[in-house]
C-alpha cells in the first residue's frame, strides 16, 4: 500500500475528471506553445485546431520526458501517454479524407429528401420491364438446361429404386466416431476414383460394393460418387429384383438385361 503522504500528494494532482494530471511536458510548435495538459484540454474543448499542430515535436517532447525522468512516477507517465494517444487518435480521424461537399441547389428548401416513395414509379416500371423481358428467351445458360449436357435415360431404374438401395446401405452404417471439430475435408473426386476401382467387371449391388465397416458419412460419399459416375456415363445401373446393381459402363454394352440404365445414349 502507498504511504499516507504519497496519497495526500497525489490527491492534489488528480484533475476534475478523476485522473492524474499529465506531467508538465512543455511543447513548442509553430502553432502552439504550452504544456501537454493544456494542449489536451484545448483540443478536447475544440479551442485549438489539431490539424494545424504538428505531432512530431509533441512526441519528441514526450520521449524526452520519458528518457530524462527515469520513470519515477508511473501514473504521471501513463497520464502523459493517455493524453498523447488521445491527440494522435483525434489527428488520425481529422486526417481521413472527407467526402466532397454537396453541390448547392438553387433552391435548397425545395430539394426533396430521399425517400422510397420517390422510387415507386421506377419500381413499377422495372417490374413491368422484368415481366416483358421474361417473355423473351435468349441463347444463354440461364434460359434452360445446358445445351451441351448429354441427356441420359434412366430406363426403368427409378429414383425410388436408387433411394431404397441407399436406404439399405445406410441401415448397415456404423455410428460416426467422435472426432475433433476440424474434420479433414473429403473430396468427391477422390471418392469417385475409389468407386470406379470398386465397380468391377461384374454387376454388384450397393451393399456388395461398400464393404463394412463404414459410417453414414462414408455411405453418403459412396452414393454421391456413384450418382456422379452414372451422370458422367462411366457407371451403368440396372434393376434386378428389388435392388439396383451397378457396373462399369462397358458392361451395359456387353449384356442387354432388361431395365438397364444406359447413360449417354
Amino acid at each position, binding site marked *: 500500500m502507498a504511504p499516507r503522504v504519497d496519497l495526500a500528494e497525489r490527491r492534489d494532482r488528480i484533475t476534475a475528471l478523476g485522473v492524474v494530471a499529465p506531467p508538465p511536458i512543455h511543447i513548442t510548435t509553430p502553432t502552439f506553445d504550452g504544456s501537454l495538459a493544456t494542449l489536451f484540454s484545448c483540443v478536447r474543448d475544440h479551442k485549438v485546431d489539431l490539424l494545424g499542430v504538428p505531432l512530431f515535436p509533441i512526441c519528441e517532447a514526450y520521449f524526452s520526458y520519458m528518457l530524462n525522468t527515469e520513470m519515477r512516477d508511473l501514473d504521471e507517465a501513463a497520464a502523459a501517454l493517455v493524453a498523447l494517444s488521445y491527440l494522435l487518435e483525434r489527428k488520425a480521424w481529422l486526417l481521413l479524407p472527407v467526402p466532397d461537399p454537396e453541390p448547392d441547389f438553387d433552391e435548397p428548401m425545395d430539394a426533396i429528401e430521399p425517400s*422510397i416513395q*420517390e*422510387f415507386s414509379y*421506377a419500381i413499377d416500371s422495372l417490374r413491368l420491364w422484368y415481366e*416483358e423481358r*421474361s417473355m423473351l*428467351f435468349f441463347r444463354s445458360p440461364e*434460359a434452360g438446361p445446358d445445351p451441351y449436357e448429354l441427356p441420359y435415360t434412366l430406363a426403368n431404374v427409378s429414383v425410388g429404386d436408387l433411394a431404397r438401395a441407399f436406404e439399405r446401405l445406410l441401415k448397415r452404417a456404423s455410428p460416426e466416431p467422435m472426432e475433433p471439430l476440424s474434420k479433414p475435408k473429403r473430396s468427391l473426386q477422390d471418392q469417385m476414383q475409389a468407386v470406379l476401382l470398386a465397380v468391377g467387371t461384374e454387376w454388384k449391388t450397393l451393399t456388395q460394393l461398400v464393404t463394412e465397416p463404414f459410417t453414414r458419412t462414408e455411405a453418403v460419399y459412396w452414393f454421391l460418387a456413384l450418382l456422379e459416375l452414372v451422370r458422367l456415363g462411366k457407371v451403368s445401373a440396372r434393376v434386378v429384383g428389388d435392388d439396383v446393381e451397378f457396373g462399369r459402363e462397358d458392361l451395359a454394352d456387353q449384356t442387354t438385361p432388361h431395365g438397364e440404365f444406359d447413360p449417354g445414349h
Partner: protein
Amino acid sequence: MEEAVTPNQHLEAVDLVFALLFVADTPSSAETLASALGFTVGQVEQAVDVLTKRLRKAGPLQLVKLAGGYQLSTRAEYAELIANFLKPQRQRLSRSLMEVLAIVAYRQPITMAEVEEVRGVQSDYAVKALMERRLLQEVGRKTVPGRPVLYGTSAQFLHQFKLNDLKELPPLETEMPALPSPE
C-alpha cells in the same frame, strides 16, 4: 465439306452478323462484331438495321439491343410455347428486392447504409440476395471512415430488364403525390 467463309467472300455482311449473333450467348457490341468480321462499326450497324428489318418480317426470332450490345431472342408470342418446353426456373423479385434494386440503379455507386437510409429498414439481406442473382455488384469502396463497400448494378441487371444502358431508366418522380384534402 464446305470451305470456311471469310467476310471478304461472297456472303453478305448481314448474314455474317446473323451467324455471329446466332451463336453468341451474351450481347455483342457493334465494336466486337466489327472486330470479329473485319468491318467498320458503321458497316456492322447498317447490317444490324437490315437484319432487324428482315427478322421483323418473318420468323420466330428478333434482334434486341440490350446491355450495350445486340442479341437474338425469340419473339414474345412464342413465350408460352418455349416456357412449356424449357420449363425455366422463374425467379420472382419481391417488393423489397425491387426497392433495393431501384435505389441502387438510380443512386449508384451507393453504400448499404445509404440504401437503408432511403428505405428506412435494414437491407443487408436484400442486397445479398441481389448480389447472388448477379443483379448487383461491388464497384468499389467509399473514402469515408470504415471504407464501406459501394454497390452498383451489373450487366446482368441490364439484361434482365431489357435495358441497353442506365440512361433508359425512367426519370424519378420529382414531386410527392398530393395528399387527399380533408372533407
